[in-house]
């Protein structure tokens, strides 16, 4: 009898679909350097998952003919749609550290928006004080883990630099995060800001010239 009862209880408590993340984003980074080889800006490409793309299109009434192509007017209207109205404390889901010191990034500047194979692809640019690429650490993540970001490509670094992308074991992290508390409400994500545990990490090492 107890076994059956435990079974019934289990069904009530069985893990539901995760509350977070809701959006999946592929990230591409292209660094800009000055003549001395210092980094002066980074271009960030965000490629959104198909469902989020469809939501954006549906909410704005874009691509009414469903051919998965945006007109120039639509592109102009969409440009920078995700860069305005950042919530208080949101830093653009991009964190740079040089020699373990946090680098301040400038206000985002929208560059382009495209629809590629049914996925929205946007590019924006963040400037920074000229910074030596050596010992640079870059982590693209949303602290609240509303969006899950994956670092897909890195370009534009000086040729003397090597890059290494360290990816966490997602399952292990998820298991560890599950131990922190009940994830079914929004407050969990506000309190624990678990995004940082899931992040990919780009490590740059450069040969001194």
């Amino acid at each position: 009898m107890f076994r059956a009862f435990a079974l019934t209880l289990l069904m009530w408590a069985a893990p539901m679909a995760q509350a977070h993340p809701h959006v999946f984003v592929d990230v591409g980074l292209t660094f800009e350097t000055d003549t001395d080889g210092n980094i002066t800006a980074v271009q960030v490409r965000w490629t959104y998952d198909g469902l989020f793309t469809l939501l954006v299109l549906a909410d704005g009434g874009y691509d009414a003919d469903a051919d998965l192509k945006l007109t120039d007017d639509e592109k102009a209207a969409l440009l920078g749609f995700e860069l305005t109205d950042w919530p208080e404390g949101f830093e653009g889901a991009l964190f740079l550290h040089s020699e373990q010191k946090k680098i301040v990034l400038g206000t985002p500047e929208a560059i382009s928006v495209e629809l590629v194979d049914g996925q929205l692809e946007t590019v924006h640019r963040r400037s920074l004080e000229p910074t030596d690429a050596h010992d640079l650490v870059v982590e693209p993540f949303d602290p609240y883990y509303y969006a899950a970001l994956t670092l897909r490509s890195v370009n534009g670094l000086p040729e003397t630099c090597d890059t290494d992308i360290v990816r966490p074991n997602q399952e292990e992290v998820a298991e560890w995060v599950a131990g922190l508390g009940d994830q079914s409400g929004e407050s969990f994500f506000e309190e624990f800001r678990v995004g940082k545990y899931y992040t990919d990490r780009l490590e740059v090492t450069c040969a001194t010239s």
Partner: protein
Amino acid sequence: MRHVVTGGAILVVGLAVWLWGMGGSDQILSWATTGQERVQNAMAGYLQELRAGNRAALAGLWGLCFAYGFFHAAGPGHGKLLIGGYGLGAQVPLTRLSLIAVISSLAQAAVAVALVYAGVFMLGLSRTAMTDISDRWLAPVSYAAIAAVGIWLLLRGLRHWRQTRTSHHHDNHEHKKHHDDHVCQTCGHSHAPDAEHVAQARTLRDMLVLIGAIAIRPCTGALFLLILTVQLGIGMAGVVGAFIMGLGTASVTLAVAIASVTLRDGLLARLATSGRIPRALPLVEMAAGALVAIISLQLMMRTL
């Protein structure tokens, strides 16, 4: 009666297999392992194809809806708590509880459809506003209603318990009182022919209360699908999808219904040999009612 249940179960399982074969399961199963990104992209792909006029994508979308309903029903809400608690505590036949399980899931889908079509067309509400209404208002209301039913079960159990206690001392008098209640304490069936009408009315009232408490809160997934399909101009695909989602949910609540009634019957069979049924039954009813009330109140607090 058993045949009806078996038939119903076979129908649902058959439907599950059929929808499963359409590919929904692969994507949903990968949800647990490789993440929901693939599911989201698959959903978007089907919707996109439908929007472009490819009706063949309907099967894929609906298969995904069924699987979504099934897996989503494993989470809180969707009436498992109430169905399970009622099945354990009240003297409800399996057929009726199964019927309640299926109807409440479909009613939940109907509420979602009604809410979206009223909200979008009459009030011009946005997707976020609609989801807000569901999560901030309807969810706590539904949990409160379920908690109320739990308390009602608890009180009814308490009353039955008092009756059995007094029946020890005044056997004859109490027997009459049992018949006033129209339900035989040991078997859960109504015996008095003249009282059958009243009993049926009570049964109907119980059913409506249960279904109502569950259906008040539409599933967020259904709302999401409905609004998106309205916006994309493929509303009917979404309406049918919402009801198929409800069937997916129903297959889980149906399992809970069967589990709880089987559990109760097993318990009764064990007690029958010891002859303690009249006193044990109300205790089970009270415990189940208390459990339903406590859990749903906790869930309600979380949504406030």
